[in-house]
């Protein structure tokens, strides 16, 4: 039901692989804030197990703690049926010589400790070549259209005037239809910063979005009792 045109960032369907698992906190946070959809794996086997239908969109491999495992994973990524095209390696200063003779295993690297904006910029740049192909990125779901380029939302062809946080929340939900998110997850993924409202802010914004979507469509965002919220139909109930 969701149609996605553009690659790279803002691409919910396409998952980025992150090594190791669990992902280092600062890496996870940067990717979340930049809107990437990712999954942490602990090695080649798990990379196969969790591989999305259309393959991994890219990989962020952190060498710091386990350089051997990291390079083994990079090698396995290149050898897959659908090779992973964008491999970004995070490496500390002492490990720099490890890059020698491994040019084939990565597309770009970034020194740790990294600045979040550098990591974000490198990710964006890695996907730039592809981004040039399809400029427009749209998220569509039964009448709702979000244009991620222009930040504009519409429903049934009518523009939907949203505040910034309403837009961000709706974007996040619409990019992950059918999935249930707890308030805490939404707060950390969508807000990601301290706000006067605290955790209740999520409920307040959901109510505002429902009001703006209008009575007939308010049930697009469903309350899942004692868990959180879900956008659209669950995969299992359809």
């Amino acid at each position, binding site marked *: 039901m969701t149609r996605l045109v553009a690659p790279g960032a803002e691409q919910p369907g396409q998952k980025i692989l992150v090594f190791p698992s669990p992902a280092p906190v600062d890496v996870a946070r940067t990717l979340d*804030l930049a809107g990437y959809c990712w999954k942490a794996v602990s090695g080649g086997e798990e990379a196969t197990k969790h591989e999305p239908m259309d393959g991994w969109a890219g990989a962020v491999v952190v060498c710091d703690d386990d350089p051997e495992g990291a390079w083994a994973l990079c090698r396995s990524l290149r050898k897959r049926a659908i090779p992973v095209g964008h491999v970004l390696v995070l490496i500390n200063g002492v490990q720099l010589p490890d890059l020698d003779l491994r040019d084939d295993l990565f597309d770009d690297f970034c020194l740790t400790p990294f600045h*979040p*904006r550098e990591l*974000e910029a490198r990710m964006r740049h890695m996907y730039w070549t592809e981004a040039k192909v399809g400029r427009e990125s749209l998220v569509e779901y039964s009448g709702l259209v979000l244009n991620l380029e*222009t*930040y*504009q939302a519409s429903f049934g062809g009518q*523009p939907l*005037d949203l*505040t*910034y*946080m*309403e*837009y961000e929340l709706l974007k996040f939900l619409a990019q992950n239809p059918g999935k249930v998110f707890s*308030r*805490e997850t939404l707060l950390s993924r969508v807000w*990601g*910063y*301290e*706000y*006067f*409202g*605290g*955790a*209740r*802010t999520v409920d*307040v914004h959901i*109510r*505002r979005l*429902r*009001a*703006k979507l209008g009575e007939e469509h308010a049930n697009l965002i469903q309350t899942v009792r004692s868990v959180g919220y879900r956008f659209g139909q669950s995969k299992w109930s359809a």
Partner: protein
Amino acid sequence: MAPMQDQQRDYVLRTVEERGIRLVRLWFTDVLGTLKSFAISPAEMENAMNDGMSFDGSSIDGYSRVQESDVLALPDANTFEVLPWADTKGAEARVFCDIAKLDGTPFDGDPRQVLKRNLNAAREKGYSFYIAPDIEYFYFAPPDGTNKPVPLDEGGFFDLTSTDIASSLRKETIRTLETMSIPVEYSFHEDAPSQHEIDLRHTDALTMADSVMTFRFVVKEIAALHNVHATFMPKPLENIQGSGMHLHLSLFKGEENAFYSADDPYNLSPTAKCFMAGLLRHAAEITAVTNQTVNSYKRLVPGFEAPVHISWARNNRSGLIRVPIPKRGSESATRLEYRSPDPACNPYLAFSVILAAGLRGIEQGYELPKEADSNLFEMSDSELEKLSIQQLPQSLSDALRVMENSSLVAEALGEHIFEWFLRNKRHEWRSYKTHISEYELGRYLKSL
């Protein structure tokens, strides 16, 4: 600048461009709670978001200072909203602003900054403050120069029955509010002729103060479009109940309602009880802020469901604080209803002093007085005294006298606003005191 703010700014600028916004209105509030606005062209918007727009504050009530009259309006991108009543010339948008001194530090005459400072103090203790107001107001025929309020319900003003007109006005108002991110919980025609009530869904106090400002603007605007006058004057009609703004208050710690306890018969936590005790002990001190006009005190009289006594009860509408009974299983709905404020107050300042009073109660572990569950209006003074139940201030003058000695209010408002407010309101009282009313002429002119 943090990436989040960058993105917000981009969002606003792109929206201005994509929606062809013709004017952006910068909204802020003076010390008396009047909405102030100046418009800038979309081309200025980027500039305004980066550096703020400077303007001369000396013309704004309560901003004036001898030396530094220039201040900066800094748009809060989070509040950017396209106005739903676009005319044919193109859409307009509004954004609330924080007012800062030219060096970027908060301007202490700005009520919004005052509320933010108080909310930060609460946040340092782990609390977020939530408010849901029930706002009452009247629809009258447009003023004709005599300043006499003519209720719509008094026949002949409209071809349709006035109930239809008023309820369609109210419906249109609610629709507009909802498209402006202000969800409405209930709305109904009040007991009094031409009086209406709209209850808003709870939000954090800063968003709610902004929402109350927007609310008053929208109600008046939509009424005016239909040649009707909407008023938030606390007591426009003698012998008929006035307009209040009951506030449903709650504190949250993370996702938990800090007012809720499963172990208490009223489901009130020790935090809730201390907060309530704080509000009760300081109620008289904060009344000048929550009820800031001469007219406010004509509402706070016995017999009209408005509070007169400083008391609390689970279900007694003659008390100052009511503890509503939440539906079973909805812990998050545990709250206190503070019943004295009226809709003519400055919401930023009113929310600030209410929060400060409640937090003081928590900090110092005040003990909650006994519940007063009988009808206080029917009690004699000596009975009330036995229960040590005090009255709210009887007039603006009384209220100012109590406020003047309150270090709590001075701290919550800051010296600048505290002093200006007292000065301005004493002046208001003086000009009222010398006024000879129709009541006096009717009663005394012939007989004395």
